[in-house]
């Protein structure tokens, strides 16, 4: 009855990057008292929502939150506030906690409320969205319930469209499942049944083919569900008993959990099977294909992996995997306050996967991540005031901010950070009014394959946006309210680049400007 997948490492890096957005209150304003007011509505229907707990958090002092509850008309008001910026969150039964301006499935989408002269804090429409619900039953061909784990692969808008296994759920003893916390984005479902005890002692366990909705074993023929907020979807599975080849693990895995990954829809990484410590040493019923077998040691937090090619015969994999790869980086800072270097934090996010390694730069400017699974990782910096000037390696491929981690050996990186970035700030307006929430995109004028070169800022309620630590160079700035836009994909933003505002960022320069959305 165990779900096949028990733990995600860090689900997504972007949630931790949330603090990277910054806004400064307008200090020039005289002390005055302001209000934040508005109405909370169901974003899908526009109906005002009663009994919503609205929580207000001062950006400058997050521990000092206050709250109110909406009445029958959905209205809320906070009074007597100084000038500043405020986070606004809504929570109601049936509506998971959401921030003002947040779009479910669009990471890091928050709009702060600006109070003060020129602020826009009254008459707000706070759209909050109910989750989508997927429910169904998993049975075998004879109609008996099959205990299975469901993996949910969601489409995420992180600049470039990605698909990521973001959640798993388990059926109950009747084979039924119900998931009611899904953001309204396209998704795929994969059902993986744990091996059942064999029907006779000399037989292998009863196994079922991992199956995508609706009853597809190939991710390329899986059906995408385009979830809408508050809607309920029925997704039943009939699993067929199947008997592929086995992968036999030879040797001691110790306290490690063995995970078998395969490629799911659109390059996502899905878990096909898992063996915890003491759960045996055989992966049964594996279809031909290419897999990654990862050993994860919960005690040390380290991993090692091998690529496994499965053909028509059983496969034996020798463990442990010697010399697991590690990443060692020498980090240097040019043109900046040396204090910023110590504590600078990097994320290495597995491309297509859901694992993120976070590490802070240690004394002497070194950073080490021991024991990783092989793969390609996106390197991101999560420290204000600095940008990545260059990443090079003497012994592995580093292209466009993506690091190849091989199956063995030490990956040596040389990272140069710079503190000479410029500042680009301004206000987005439309029809003479602040435009919020909207997405302001800063794209390099010359197409870049490096995702780090494309940046997005969700405007605050007064339309303001601020980029700091912008790598000097030539850019195009544009504003859009198309939340599904792949702003990090040059091909997808071609028309915006043609009509956007060209700017040139000098080292330590500062640019203030007003932008309006382009009309096409």
């Amino acid at each position, binding site marked *: 009855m165990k779900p096949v997948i028990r733990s995600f490492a860090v689900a997504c890096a972007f949630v931790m990057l949330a603090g990277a957005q910054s806004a400064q209150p307008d200090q020039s304003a005289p002390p005055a008292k302001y209000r934040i007011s508005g109405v909370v509505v169901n974003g899908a229907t526009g109906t005002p929502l009663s009994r919503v707990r609205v929580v207000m958090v001062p950006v400058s002092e997050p521990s000092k939150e206050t709250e109110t509850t909406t009445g029958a008309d959905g209205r809320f008001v906070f009074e007597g506030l100084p000038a500043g910026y405020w986070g606004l969150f809504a929570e109601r*039964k049936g509506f998971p906690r959401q921030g003002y301006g947040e779009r479910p499935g669009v990471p890091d989408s928050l709009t702060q409320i600006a109070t003060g002269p020129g602020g826009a804090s009254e008459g707000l429409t706070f759209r909050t969205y109910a989750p989508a619900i997927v429910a169904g039953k998993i049975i075998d061909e004879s109609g008996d319930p099959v205990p299975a784990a469901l993996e949910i692969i969601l489409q995420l808008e992180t600049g470039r469209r990605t698909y990521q296994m973001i959640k798993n759920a388990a059926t109950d003893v009747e084979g039924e499942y119900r998931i009611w916390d899904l953001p309204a984005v396209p998704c795929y479902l994969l059902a993986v049944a744990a091996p059942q005890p064999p029907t006779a002692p000399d037989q*292998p366990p009863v196994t079922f083919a991992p199956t995508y909705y609706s009853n597809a074993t190939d991710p390329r023929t899986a059906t995408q569900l385009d979830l809408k907020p508050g809607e309920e979807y029925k997704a039943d599975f009939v699993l067929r008993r199947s008997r592929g080849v086995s992968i036999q693990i030879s040797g001691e895995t110790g306290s490690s959990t063995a995970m078998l990954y395969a490629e799911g829809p659109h390059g996502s990484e899905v878990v096909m099977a898992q063996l915890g410590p003491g*759960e045996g040493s055989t992966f049964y019923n594996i279809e031909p294909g290419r897999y990654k077998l990862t050993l994860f040691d919960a005690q040390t937090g380290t991993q090692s992996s091998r690529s496994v090619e499965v053909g028509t015969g059983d496969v034996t994999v020798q463990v442990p995997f010697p010399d697991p790869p590690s990443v060692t980086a020498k980090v240097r800072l040019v043109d900046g306050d040396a204090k910023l270097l110590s504590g600078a934090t990097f994320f290495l996010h597995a491309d297509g996967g859901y694992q993120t390694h976070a590490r802070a730069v240690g004394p002497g400017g070194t950073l080490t991540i021991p024991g990783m699974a092989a793969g390609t990782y996106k390197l991101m910096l999560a420290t204000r005031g600095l940008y990545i000037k260059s990443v090079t390696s003497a012994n592995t491929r580093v292209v466009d901010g993506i690091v190849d981690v091989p199956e063995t050996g030490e990956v040596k990186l040389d990272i140069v950070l710079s503190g000479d970035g410029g500042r680009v700030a301004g206000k987005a307006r439309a029809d003479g009014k602040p435009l919020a929430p909207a997405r302001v995109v800063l794209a390099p004028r010359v197409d870049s394959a490096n995702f780090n070169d494309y940046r997005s800022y969700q405007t605050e309620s007064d339309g303001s946006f601020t980029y700091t630590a912008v790598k000097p160079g030539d850019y195009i700035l544009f504003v859009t309210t198309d939340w599904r836009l792949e702003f990090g994909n040059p091909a997808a933003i071609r028309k915006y680049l043609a009509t956007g505002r060209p700017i040139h960022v000098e080292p330590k320069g500062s640019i203030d400007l007003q932008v309006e959305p382009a009309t096409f």
Partner: protein
Amino acid sequence: MRFALILAASFLLLPPAASAQPAAGEFSLAGTIVNRLNGTPVRNARVQLSTGDQVESDAAGAFHFSHLAAGQYAVAAAKAGFEEDDGVAVDLHASRADLVIRLTPLASVRGRITDDEGEPVDGVTVVALRSQVADGWRSYEPAGSAVTDDRGQYRIPWLTAGRYLVQAAGYNEHTFAGESVATLRSHDTFAPVYFNGSRDRDSALLVPLTPGGEAHADFSLTLQAGHRLTGHLANIKPHTQPVLQLLSGDEDLGLNRSSLDFFTGDFTIDNVADGSYRLRVKGIGADDQPVVAEQEIQINGHDVTGVSLALGPGFAVKGTVRVEGPDEQTAAESVQQALQEPFLALSAPEGLSFLAEPAVDGAFRIPSVMPGKYRVSFAPSEPLYVASARSGDIDLLADPELVLRSGPPPEIEVVLRADGGSIEGMLAPEMTRDGAVCVFLIAESSRRPPQAACTDGGSFEIGSVAPGSYRLHAWKISAEVEYNSQRVLSKLAASGTQVEVRPAANTKVQLHTLSEEPQ
């Protein structure tokens, strides 16, 4: 491959194969697996023979083993959703096809949780606690749990028949899948509540579950704003491994939103409803001795900050023991020897226990006891019995439950005597026909723990009995009698077979029937 198959077989609920039987033979053994309640066939059940042979029942519940030699076989069946079955013994001399194995379906609890306006509440953890009696004490074992869905519905499946407490125990954060738990601290919460609205176990309703039955337990919860509790814990050492507990009464509420910084000692507990609590921190001190800190907390509509605790050693429980009676008795070698043995135990329901051995001067000391709820039990060696035991105003014979809070209890004073009587009894032969029987000696007027003797023959003996009037009861050894409950004891003291025990005298008694099991 071999290795893997052995491991795979460990999934099975079936007993391991017994002695090897001849594999080849001329007989066959067939039958059906049925649901004990309604007689319907059970398909895809695993049927295992003591030889290790195993088949699966078909859609009609039928199974078939062939090529069996004559002999003794055990046949067991297992299927998810049914109670584990011991199987049936078959003496095979000819082929037979009429074997019926009945499986008992498991029970479940389901229900719906709504708030005071009738809206469903999702994310509520509901726990089923199975009521059981062991050593005369009632206890509740978590047997299953479930979380309500967006419709407020939950279902706890696969419970063995019995009596259960059903508790709405906790409330979880709700964010969109894949998003981090929000850093905001405001959240609705509720105090854990049992099915009939009771907040404590003793007045909660026990829900009976019959085999295959499904009980409905709906809750209406009043959600209220949760508050934050912050403070500082002093004296954390690298080896301390402190654990925070928030108690309401003596019940640990379980903290799912708390954090404690092992370096600074700063802690935060979120989502605490209004009420009176005791904050307790337990840890490990130097030399593996327990360390503890406790503080009363009141939450009343606001956050509470600046709570300050310091970990310190547990406290010593001290006491004295003396033997009363004529000099020749107290000085007897057997008495002096008995005094060397442990005679008092403090045991916590979670399994921790401390034993007391008297020193030469009659003083005893249990060092470093942690706060908690303990049961005090006495087991002086023959010929001693406990004449009285007190801790301050508490008569520990009558009220053996001792709640230790932030300090030691008043000194425990135990008086032993060596002039006890004894009872020799005979049971009517039919009483032990179905197996062993336990005889309990219940004091009529004075409140003291019962003494017991179990036998599968016809005679029993109970020694070192305080003189007085008693009642004798006998039950099967499997009977679950809550004989340490005051309510049950007072019933027992008014029924059963009367017997008078005089100092240093033997009383003979004859029992004719088993007692009714008190509810």
